[in-house]
């Protein structure tokens, strides 16, 4: 973010804190597109995403006085949006599994005859069929892992920004990201390298 737009943002926040709705609405205009996309990917359902979007910004309006400017306004909104999405997940599935996703062992990699995929990922990602596979795989991730992958690998957040947006520390971002990527790799491999032997049974 340029220092100029940062100044403009600070000015809008200052006015919004005084209760000026037009200034708040301007902040909504600046962020709503990204937040809508994020929520849609996270909950995978347009009507839930729409409702969460409304709750997110209402909550931001009510709590704007607690925004201290330690992060950008946008990161702060991501955090509110993610919190609301997780409240919805817990409401629907109170027994949210907290199992850690597994890492493979070295022996397992040798036994499974892991092999490389013979395509260029940038080209492959243009195919509609591949995109479908990618998004289904994301949908199979446990929600707290899904949120990390979305921010880091799809939305381009740094480790520090993702930590800020999720309210967890950077170490937890790295651990979850790594395990999530391995989980996704497994699903993708079953499509792209079906001759690879399956992961250890009994996991």
């Amino acid at each position, binding site marked *: 973010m340029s220092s100029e737009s940062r100044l403009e943002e600070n000015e809008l926040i200052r006015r919004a804190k005084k*209760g000026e*709705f037009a200034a*708040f*609405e301007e902040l*909504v205009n600046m962020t*709503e*597109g*990204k937040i*809508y*996309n994020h929520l*849609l990917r996270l909950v995978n359902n*347009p009507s839930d995403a*729409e409702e969460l*979007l*409304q709750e997110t*910004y*209402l909550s931001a*309006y*009510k709590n704007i006085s607690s925004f201290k400017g330690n992060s950008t306004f946008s990161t702060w909104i991501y955090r509110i949006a993610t919190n609301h999405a997780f409240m919805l997940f817990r409401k629907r599935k109170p027994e949210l599994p907290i199992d850690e996703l597994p*890492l*493979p*062992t*070295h022996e397992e*990699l*040798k036994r*499974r*005859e*892991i*092999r*490389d*995929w013979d*395509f260029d*990922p*940038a080209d*492959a*990602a243009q195919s509609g069929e*591949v*995109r479908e596979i*990618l*998004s289904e795989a994301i949908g199979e991730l446990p929600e707290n892992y899904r949120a990390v*992958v979305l921010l880091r*690998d*799809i*939305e*381009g957040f740094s*480790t520090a920004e993702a930590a800020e947006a999720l309210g967890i520390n950077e170490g937890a971002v*790295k651990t979850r*990201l*790594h395990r999530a*990527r*391995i989980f*996704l*790799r497994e699903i*993708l*491999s079953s499509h*792209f*390298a079906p001759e690879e032997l399956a992961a250890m049974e009994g996991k």
Partner: protein
Amino acid sequence: MAYDKLSCKEILEKLSEYIDEELDPSMCDEIDEHMGDCPPCVAFMNTLKKTVKLYNTSGDEVDIPSPVRTKLHDFLRRRCNEEKE
């Protein structure tokens, strides 16, 4: 070197940081050395890299549908005003 040699387990734990270039150079050298003669690890790392790359390049944004946007702004105008009263 200031630390012990990485075990195979530690190498597998650090692959994402390696891919993201977040490891210090001496650890990277050690991983490179291991990869030098371990084809399964090489294939695993390459497919992990491709997984990341696929997701990096697949994230197209949809425009927020205009009815969704209209409803959001109507909702906020109404509810934020109630807040003020």
